[in-house]
């Protein structure tokens, strides 16, 4: 039987990051991936011959620079086609708003009444987010008997808070648990600009702008500076660089290798067994899968009933779908020049509209007007398309996993039609350009990436499932109760989005435990 120091389950960005860091630390590492394509939710693919599109996630906006440095991704081929994409929030009346580096202006050039208020709000939120930023690469603290590192972390948080000054510190503590609707609309009028900010707060989550706690997710998103970047060669190239970084340090990656079970003996992992029956041994197993899937693979019997109950109740109702298009030519958007089309287009006319769209999903219905985040990555990166066409990648915020009547072909067509109708309001004739189209529902996302509920974040990012409560109370420090078993994906702190921090933190912890173990053996 093959033996490794560590096995990483899942070749998503977190799994690959963890593998790269473990390999960098001198461990022999195997990554097993059930799909043929690497990347998980960050994978790229060919939507039609010659058209390369991001399958699910299509942007890097929170990718942690420290992880990037430690893995030296640039040396492994990571480059950016465009950094700090501008956001264009479309208005039905054609008065589109451009948001760039924390400033907003109207696309038409005339002045935006809320420009100053928005800039001030953005600056303030950015400042608050800075307090949280330091937490991303830290293991959530033990609250009861903290060690010096936990205490130092908590003390630093307190210090950062005080450094804000009394007025800002108070405001931070108020905003922290508030909701995006109030935080945004207290400062600026409702409309495409407010809608854009609110969409950032709820993207990927089963929550509406009025849901208390949605302000925190907004801060979370801003914690990494809020810049959005397009990797050169698409998400596939980003994943390629991650894989290359791991492999160059000796990590092995097996594709089409679905894990059937995590093997446990005497309360410690000893390896894994693949669906084809092949077993591999390793004293460390890091799972980048969500908590529920990891529990299932490991076996309920190795967990206390309370832990099982908590994991069962992790909220992971996916609400985000994807529509990918291969286009024969660049679509024409009314009143928008090509330079702006290369950025991030948002169809989120107002906070109110976003809330209304969310309301439908609560009851398993498809909203009439979901919010859209649209990207045409081939504009900035022509290498994505052989020839003259383009690819368009559309994130659809709110399409419920539990759709009433189920996700049958009719429902899929309805989703596609809804999305295309919304887009054609601004880009008439878009339909005629379509060479190929893919509709990926939360159910598809679950099927392909394994994420329970098709949830982008492997579990709702809400206060009750964050930090010391992620994925569940009592299991927040990456290590699961079975010795040598770790969560290293979005299910663990700091959660979803393509950050790489969970992989980083888990790998670091696993290596520390390994060192202790070796010491004990010696």
């Amino acid at each position, binding site marked *: 039987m093959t033996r490794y120091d560590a096995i990483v389950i899942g070749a998503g960005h977190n799994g690959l990051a963890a593998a790269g860091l473990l390999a960098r630390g001198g461990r022999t590492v195997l990554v097993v991936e059930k799909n043929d394509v690497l990347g998980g939710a960050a994978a790229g693919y060919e939507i039609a011959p010659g058209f390369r599109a991001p399958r699910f996630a299509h942007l890097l906006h929170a990718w942690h620079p420290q992880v990037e440095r430690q893995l030296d991704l640039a040396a492994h081929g990571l480059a950016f086609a465009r950094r700090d994409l501008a956001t264009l929030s479309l208005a039905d009346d054609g008065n589109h708003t451009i948001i760039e580096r924390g400033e907003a202006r109207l696309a038409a050039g005339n002045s935006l009444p809320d420009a100053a208020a928005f800039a001030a709000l953005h600056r303030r939120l950015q400042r608050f987010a800075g307090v949280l930023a330091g937490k991303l690469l830290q293991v959530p603290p*033990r*609250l*009861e*008997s903290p060690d010096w590192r936990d205490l130092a972390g908590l003390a630093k948080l307190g210090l950062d*808070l*005080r450094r804000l000054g*009394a*007025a800002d*510190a*108070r*405001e931070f*503590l*108020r*905003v*922290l*648990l*508030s*909701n995006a609707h*109030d935080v945004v609309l*207290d400062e600026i009028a409702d409309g495409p600009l407010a809608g854009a900010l609110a969409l950032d707060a709820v993207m990927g989550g089963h*929550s509406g702008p*009025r*849901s*208390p*706690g949605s*302000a925190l997710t907004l801060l979370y998103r801003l914690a990494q500076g809020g810049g959005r970047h397009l990797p050169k060669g698409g998400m596939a190239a980003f994943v390629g660089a991650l894989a290359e970084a791991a492999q160059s340090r000796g990590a092995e990656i097996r594709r089409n290798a679905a894990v059937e079970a995590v093997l446990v003996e005497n309360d410690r992992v000893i390896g894994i067994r693949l669906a084809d029956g092949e077993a591999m041994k390793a004293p460390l197993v890091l799972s980048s899968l969500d908590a529920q899937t990891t529990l299932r693979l490991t076996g309920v019997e190795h967990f206390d009933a309370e832990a099982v*109950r908590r994991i069962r*109740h992790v*909220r992971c109702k996916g609400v985000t779908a994807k529509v990918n298009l291969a286009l024969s030519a660049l679509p024409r958007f009314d009143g928008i020049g090509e330079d702006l089309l290369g950025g991030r287009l948002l169809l989120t006319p107002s906070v109110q509209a976003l*809330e*209304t769209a969310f*309301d439908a999903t*609560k*009851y398993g219905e498809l909203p009439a007007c979901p919010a859209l985040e649209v990207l045409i990555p081939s504009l900035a990166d022509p290498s994505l398309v052989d020839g003259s066409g383009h690819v368009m990648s559309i994130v659809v915020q709110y399409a419920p996993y539990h759709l009433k009547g189920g996700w049958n072909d009719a429902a899929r067509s309805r989703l596609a039609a809804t999305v295309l109708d919304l887009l054609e309001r601004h880009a008439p004739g878009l339909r005629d350009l379509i060479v190929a189209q893919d509709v990926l529902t939360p159910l598809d996302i679950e099927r392909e990436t394994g994420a329970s509920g098709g949830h982008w974040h492997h579990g709702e990012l*809400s*206060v*009750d499932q964050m930090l*010391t*409560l992620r994925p569940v*109370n*009592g299991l927040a420090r990456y290590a699961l109760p079975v010795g040598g078993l770790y969560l290293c994906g979005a299910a663990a702190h700091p959660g979803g989005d393509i950050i790489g921090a969970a992989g980083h933190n888990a790998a670091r912890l696993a290596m520390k435990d390994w060192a202790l173990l070796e010491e004990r053996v010696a």
Partner: protein
Amino acid sequence: MSARNAGRYDVIVVGAGHNGLTAACYLAKRGLKTLVVERNDWIGGAAVSRELYEGWTYSNCSYVCSLLRPEVVRDLDLPRHGLQVIPYESGATFTDDGGYFAYYSDHDALRREISRFSRRDADNYERYARAVMRQCRFIKPLLMRTAPDPASNRPRDLAELLYLGRRFHDLGEREMGETIRFWTMSIGEFLDEYFETEVIKAHFAGSGIIGTGLGVYSPGTAYVLLHHYMGEVDGTIGAWGFTRGGMGGVTQAMASALTEAGGEIRAGSGVAEILAKNGKTTGVVLENGDLLEAPTVISNMDVRRTFLNHVDQKELPDDFTKAVKRFKIRGSSAKLNIALDGFPSFPAAPAGAPFLKGDLHASQSLEELERAYDDWKAGRWSAEPYFDMLIPTCIDPTMAPPGKHMMTVFVQYAPYALASGEPWDGPARDALAETVIAKIARHSPDFRDLILHKEVRTPWDIEHEVGLTEGNIFQGELTFDQMFFNRPVPGYADYRSPIKGLYLCGSSSHPGGGVMAAPGANAAREVLRDLGFKSAATSAERAA
């Protein structure tokens, strides 16, 4: 307006609600010359008993009692002044299939009742009750304490923060986590973790939304449930009761205690302006032109009404005014008070069903409740409203003539302003009432015919009569960005304001709404502190 000097006091309390009266009592008991001024001809604010139909007494705002702090009841000796609270023992939710789920305070009966739907739920109810009880235990000592300012370096704030930190730490790691979860979860998701039966979840979920602009799936509503559970009647945590003679019994007892302590009440003219000069308050001018002087003014009005309507804006820092404007006071509740010619029949209820003497509901699922909330968000009253309906005359014979009954129906949700632009004081009010009556009549066919008189109170009506902004019963949303040290405004959670001598004592302040009297008692404690009173004379003063 030419003001006519009408007296000089040590302390003037604006508003004779339960919190204003409580604060006044504590101060008068310490020998301060205390005056309470009240806009209405009657006193009590939202804790009143009023005869609006001959022979019937309506608790036409708040209608049941549980949260009233026992410390206050003891300190002010309210039972001697006539207060009596009688717990009710059960309640029920009617379902459209002609059935019901009953809640019995008899533990064995409740187990059997829940088991009728699910035996697992019956067991899990115990786990649920324990989880809520643990949270009650945690929060109770905080109610009668002043929240610290986390950004301050004053020894007092630091000491209080340390106290909180230690208390939190004492919970143990897992309970700390559970506490954070509980405080930030939605009541719907919290209940989903315990129960599998929809009507049982719906029955318990009501307490998570009463009075709020939140839905059962809005994070933070589990806390709202706690807010309704943390009270007690004679030591039974979570019990609710009727005040004999209606909720006015609470404020009448307080008024009696106040008068006995030498305090004075002037009803019939509201405050036009709270006077302030050079950052200090000097008294108030009433709408009738009376000028009343005092170095200390305590406002029982909500924070927005106090500072935006009755204080010269020039005396307030801009940041403060902005924060006050931002404070969310969203009207979401309506009320029907009904005089009945007899006891309405509920065909679903078996003969002698004790739950008819308790709180009755007809919302059968969390989805129904959530949709009711969505209506409100869209500026409509709920097509299928949640209601908390009681017939206090089952227990309290003083509220109506023998054989006749009084019914109080608390309705969730009704917006303060209708999206249609229609005013509330027209056909809309009757249409709202009809929605509610029709829903009740689905479960009580003879109910409609028994109605002798009804009073319909929309958020607009509540605002106009009681003075609660937008008719919000808590004087401000109970969301975590407006709780504890954030209530009402960060940096001003200690009942003080930028104007020296001007204090808040209403539910806009910590620990928030309900007929609790804790804000009033806490504010009085802070006033006494500022006035240099050293020794603690009462338990509320000792509390922090």
